[in-house]
């Protein structure tokens, strides 16, 4: 049992590192572009990775309190991606 | 009797889904929450029924469940394939192509489901619909033959969706 828990904690630390790394790589894509579509995609990926980081925080602390945060960030991320894309496509968000 | 039931439950599947989502948001099952979820599940479809008059009248639920299982399985298997392609294939060896899928489906709900399925099963992203809605534009990450991709989509997903929304 104890080895299993140690392994799980190790995997958790590794996941934190990898998610941080993914955020950095998405940031690279956000900076170098080259087009608007890539920037929207990079921002969308960053939102999804942020959800992952919050979920991991919840696992690490062993609480359920971050559930609502995850849900709301998922909704906000989706809406902002769509709003950004619609603005580029139509020049307006709500017609 | 059926008239009353139809008026009360314009969308029975949505009633069930809303009740289940409500109970899951509470994260514990109690009789009070189930009843309240059912109340929400009756009020919300009734109140919004006016805005979607053309909703599909009935879907074949058993076939829909089978379809969902197939899609989940495909997502898992194909994700591993795409991960392998992304990690091992150099950019110059990738063969991205556009595929045009002629649509037999007519209902917007069915086309939306098909487009979502195509995007979630990796290797393909649905990008656009033609202006009259008769074909779907799909981008394939690495495929030798556009016709093979088109035939697989038509055979594996569209045929099943046609049976569900018959």
């Amino acid at each position, binding site marked *: 049992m104890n080895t299993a828990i140690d392994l799980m904690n190790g995997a958790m630390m590794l996941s934190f590192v990898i998610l941080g790394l993914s955020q950095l790589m998405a940031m*690279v*894509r956000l900076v170098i572009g080259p087009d608007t579509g890539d920037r929207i*995609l990079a921002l969308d990926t960053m939102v999804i990775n942020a959800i992952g980081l919050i979920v991991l925080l919840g696992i690490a602390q062993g609480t359920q309190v971050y559930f609502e945060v995850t849900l709301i960030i*998922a909704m906000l991320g*989706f809406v902002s991606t769509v709003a950004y894309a619609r603005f580029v496509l139509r020049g307006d968000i709500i017609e | 009797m059926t008239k009353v039931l139809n008026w009360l439950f314009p969308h029975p599947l949505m009633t069930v889904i809303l009740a289940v989502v409500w109970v899951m948001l509470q994260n514990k099952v109690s009789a009070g929450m189930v009843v309240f979820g059912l109340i929400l599940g009756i009020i919300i479809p009734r109140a919004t029924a006016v805005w979607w008059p053309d909703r599909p009248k009935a879907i074949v639920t058993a076939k829909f469940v089978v379809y969902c299982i197939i899609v989940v399985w495909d997502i898992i298997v194909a994700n591993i394939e795409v991960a392998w392609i992304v*990690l091992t294939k150099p950019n110059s060896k990738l063969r991205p192509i556009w595929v045009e899928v002629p649509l037999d489906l007519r209902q917007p709900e069915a086309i939306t489901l098909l487009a*979502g399925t*195509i995007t979630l099963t990796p290797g393909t992203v649905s*990008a656009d619909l*033609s202006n009259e809605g008769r074909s779907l534009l799909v981008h394939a990450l690495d495929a030798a033959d556009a016709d093979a991709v088109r035939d697989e989509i038509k055979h594996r997903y569209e045929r099943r969706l046609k049976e569900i929304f018959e």
Partner: protein
Amino acid sequence: MTLELFAVYATLFLLSVGAVFTLVAAIGLVKLNDPMTRLHAPTKAATVGIGAFLLASMSHSFALGQGSFHELLVLAFLFVTAPISANFIAKVNLHKRACDMPDAPKHDEMWSTLDVPESDRKIATEKNGPATG
């Protein structure tokens, strides 16, 4: 005891799967060289990766002896919305003509994103599209 041990191992496995897929998504986002191929990696691999993390969170709650299922809601939401955002980003790429353009459809006149009014067509077919972004 066995249920808890099983939950711990399941969490371990799901965390590893999630880490691998999010890493693949990020690598794909940086490595691939065309806006449309870039769309393939993050929209799906990242969604599956976060899905695995959410399932890990669920099985971890079982390991702590306080089972919960509400992570499935976030999971369902992510899987429903991922194709829609991917579709919008693909439309943006088509609109800005940032990628190789597809042939016109066989059965209809043109793709709906490119279907702009006759008077605007000249501006829209320039390399970078209309100056909106």
